């Protein structure tokens, strides 16, 4: 690794002033599971690495607040997976966080780092998009709220400016019944980046939301009246079969057509298109099952 300086600020103002002072020469270090790889490969050449794990204001826990579960910037995947409130209310996030890297990676990697890294293939991104999460961003000029669908700009790029940090991520607790599920395709069971990933969320008001990763320059979300089409004639079961199947298929295909996958080292474009269809239907089925269970 190329040499760099290391700073371990204990409070937010110190951290933010370091980031402002060094601008593009500074890199934020949280769990380090992406940053250290990129430092070693020379993809990042910071003069200073700012370790944010000792900043008192950044929390490592998950708290319930104002109709949300708030996940602190220092919370690691292992703790998110184990949290009983996340497991009960946001099972798709558990599914996604549980397949990030390996046990060793999940013991270090933070959710805030996963989204700040802005990989188009980040497993937690589609889930946060489907659940309509909000990113609490902190800067020396003060805090701001960024809906997660506005957070990602492109590969490796977010709306975070120099001197801005993710402070926490809010998952809104829906006042209505929902069901959501996550799925992905990888080549290896552990430690692989997703070839594609998808999260589907269905609501009792019969909306369907799909969020996709690795099929475009950034993770993105689409929403439609698919369920209204599918459910107009019957109960929730109609979503996965019955007379509305054809219209449901057509509506789903329209949603999937919004993806723009490319060919790369992990898969060809054609394979991604085909698997997106398969995984979306599976996620829809699983989400529908969960909505049905939530209704009983």
């Amino acid at each position, binding site marked *: 690794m190329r040499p760099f300086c290391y700073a371990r600020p204990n409070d937010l103002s110190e951290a933010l002033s370091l980031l402002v002072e060094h601008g593009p020469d500074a890199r934020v270090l949280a769990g380090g599971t992406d940053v250290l790889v990129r430092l070693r490969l020379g993809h990042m050449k910071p003069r200073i690495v700012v370790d944010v794990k000792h900043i008192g204001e950044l929390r490592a826990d998950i708290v319930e607040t104002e109709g949300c579960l708030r996940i602190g910037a220092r919370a690691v995947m292992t703790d998110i997976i184990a949290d009983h409130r996340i497991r009960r209310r946001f099972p798709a996030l558990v599914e996604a966080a549980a397949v990030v890297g390996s046990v060793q990676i999940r013991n270090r990697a933070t959710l805030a780092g996963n989204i700040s890294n802005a990989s188009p293939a980040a497993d937690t991104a589609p889930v946060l998009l489907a659940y309509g999460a909000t990113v609490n961003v902190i800067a020396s000029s003060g805090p701001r709220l960024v809906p997660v669908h506005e957070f990602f700009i492109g590969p490796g790029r977010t709306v975070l400016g120099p001197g801005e940090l993710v402070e926490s991520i809010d998952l809104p607790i829906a006042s209505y019944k929902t069901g959501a599920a996550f799925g992905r395709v990888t080549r290896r069971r552990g*430690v692989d980046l997703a070839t594609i990933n998808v999260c589907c969320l269905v609501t009792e008001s019969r909306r369907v939301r799909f969020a996709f990763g690795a099929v475009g320059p950034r993770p993105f979300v689409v929403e439609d009246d698919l369920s209204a089409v599918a459910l107009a004639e019957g109960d929730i079961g109609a979503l996965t079969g019955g007379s509305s199947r054809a219209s449901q298929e057509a509506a789903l295909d329209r949603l999937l057509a919004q993806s723009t996958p490319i060919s790369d080292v992990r898969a060809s474009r054609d394979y991604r298109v085909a698997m997106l269809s398969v995984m979306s239907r599976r996620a829809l089925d699983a989400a529908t099952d969960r909505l049905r269970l939530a209704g009983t």
Partner: protein
Amino acid sequence: MVPAAIPITLVVNGRQHALDVRPHHTLLEALRDQMGLTGTKECCSEGECGACTVLLDGRAVTSCLVLAVEAAGAEVVTIEGLAAGGRLDRLQQSFIDAGAVQCGFCIPGMIMAAKYLLMTNPHPSVDEIQNGLAGNLCRCGGYSRIIGAVASAARSER
């Protein structure tokens, strides 16, 4: 400009150590090159293979993805720490008994990952063992016996 070394203290295998570490050196490098604990192996250097797995404050991590300076004040357990009293850990013994060691290079990481698995889940299913070791690669392909050895160690604990 060469950034100065940073003095840190940490506990490794129950013993307090004081070191001066360069900011860009990893915990893995500090363990192997500064403390002489070469049981922890370097292989892929990007968190894919698990050969460098150690326990950091009770959690399995790949020490190639942790800066040495990040371990300041932490407690680290390496493969050497498992047999600290001169007696093999039950996992080490069951790896030997099961013939789970071929070339041996992945084994320290495998055992540390398995140690963490049994700390957090004392009686794992085969599926849970596979998941617990999913971050550890064995180029000899000895997975079947490795998983058997972990299952056997878990049984011997009952």
